[in-house]
């Protein structure tokens, strides 16, 4: 892509994200949220067909999260392939066409959310994940943690 075009495009995208007045500032002076937006813009600038995102929502405020989720679903609808990794299960549940759960480096489940629900008879993706990984002592661990903190 030509410099001029890239520059214009980036500037427009920054404007959409409400950051046009810091376009010429140093990234070092940005907050976590602003940096995350810059990263998202720079990954999309060349209009890629295939996209890998690792926790793209981290650091964003609630409104920007909604915007980004919408961006991802529109792009997916337009035929782009998006790989998306996250630990926040309810987001994954809502925006993914196909979910792969990985535990200890091994794939433990693969399919759409509906498929997974049918296979595991649990309500939410979080619960499915817990069930598949055989993790059910979260309460006990939490209680132990608090008791150590409080020294009782």
């Amino acid at each position, binding site marked *: 892509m030509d*410099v001029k075009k890239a520059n214009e495009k980036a500037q427009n995208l920054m404007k959409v994200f409400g950051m046009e*007045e*810091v*376009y*010429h*500032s*140093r990234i*070092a*002076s940005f907050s976590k949220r602003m940096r995350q937006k810059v990263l998202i813009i720079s990954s999309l600038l060349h209009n890629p067909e295939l996209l890998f995102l690792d926790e793209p929502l981290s650091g964003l405020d609630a409104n920007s999260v909604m915007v980004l989720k919408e961006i991802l679903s529109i792009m997916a609808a337009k035929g782009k392939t998006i790989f998306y990794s996250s630990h926040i299960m309810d987001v994954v549940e809502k925006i993914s066409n196909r979910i792969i759960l990985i535990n200890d480096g091994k794939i433990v489940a693969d399919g759409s959310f509906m498929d997974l629900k049918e296979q595991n008879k649990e309500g939410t993706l979080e619960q499915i994940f817990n069930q598949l990984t055989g993790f059910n002592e979260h309460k006990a661990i939490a209680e132990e943690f608090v008791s150590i903190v409080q020294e009782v």
Partner: protein
Amino acid sequence: MKDFRTLKILDRFRGLFERFGIDYPVMRKILAVKLTMDGRGTPTVFNQQKKKQKPEENGFIKSLGMYVLISIVLIPIVNFGQNYLYQMSIFFGVVMFLVMTSMISDFSNVLLDVKDKSILHTKPIEKRTINAAKTVHICLYLFFLTMAIAGIPVVIGTVTHGLIFLIFSIFGLMFINLFIVVFTALIYNFILRFFDGEKLKDVINYVQIGLSIAVMVGYQLLGRAFSFVDMKITFSPSWWHFFIPPIWFGAPFALYFGHQSNKFLWLYFLLAFLIPVISIMIYIRMIPSFERNLQKLSNHSRKSKPRERRWKNWLMHTICRSREEKVFFRFADHMMRNEREFRLKVYPSLGMSLVIPFIFIFNQIHMTSFADMVSTKWYLAIYFSSLMIPTAVSMMKYSGKYKGAWIYKTAPVENYAPLFSAVLKVFIVDLYLPVFLIQSVIFVFIFGFKIVLDLLVVFVASILYMVICSRFLKGSLPFSESFENARQSAGVKLIPALILAGVFWGIHFAVTFIPYRVFSYLILLLGITIFSWKMVYRMVWGDS
């Protein structure tokens, strides 16, 4: 945590700190953490696996060896001869010069550090203690530095001149160090008061660069203060000597050992004592406001202006052929102009190389006359400015933001040859050319148009010289290593490069004796440069 020997020695002065209301155990803990942090090396992004696990050691302490070498030169200056004012002024001048440059470029960050604020200020520690820790931290390093530079000469001087010499030197050096720390702090305080946010950081950067140049030029002035007449050094005091601190500190030696006594010497002596004491008093007064203003460093003002540089765009399209090279050219251009730490390390040597040829020329005018000088080949003094090339080129591989070097690995390029050639082209355009052009204009003004051809030769020779110096970049990509690593490796490696500059000068000098051959030499040099650029592009840069 390791118990530092330095801190054990510091324990002896515990009472002194406590008298100033400092919580000594807390300060000691803060210092121990700071020293441990300094000992941690900064791994480079790409050759992490190359380095073996080494025990923690301080890079700064390791770099002191260089200074010990320099100090050997000082031994005769201190010990032989009877002109105490001259000798001791030179001695203190060298010490001040080295300590000051080191203070500005290496320890300013410590002085201006706001990182520990979020950790320390939330704890019930008095600001006074935090500040003391900061100051002691800097002073420890300055102490080591001063010891490395002055240690051997002072010991040998004591043997020849006696114990009084030792006492005078210790007090002199102590006051000099105090003066330097306080002086830089005062300057920073002054800037902090008037600027804010990103602008502040830029101004600090420019002041640091300006100070470094001023120190270098001042060091040259010191030599001018004494004139050599019939091989005897005479000194006639005049008003501007009051602005050259090393002379103040040289005065007590002249008074005591030289048995000289005039009112100027006493005045210098008085200044040597009074100025540091007064500045410390002002400094202590100012600490609270300094701390408050320091907070401004973490503010972010949100104004900045874009600048479009038409001519640079045009230049880029003319001198860069491939697309990759253009991209890297733009990248390197941004890095060299915007990265503050890089500017701080490289720009002072640019300023210096701008000034040096003129210092030599003024010297020459001083010795003979202007009319005589113009008819000589002194215009070749412009070669002195190319002495900055090896230093600057070897700095290209460092950056304050070296961690961003992952970008090279993600960039879709086959080899890094365009990167290296773009970086060198930016170096010529951004750094070398401005200096060279200014000098050329002034030189043509002094020597007349007859030297234009010679100046072209110098320019081409400098490019060839730079290509040869690009060897220093081998093994790492531009801007991919921390400046911390630079301190350890600089110095000795550059000596062959400096000799090479002499060779270029010598050939050019010889050629000027053959009439009408300068032009042929220019063509020949141009051919060699183009050929070697192409060869280095393919053979050296291509496979790193």
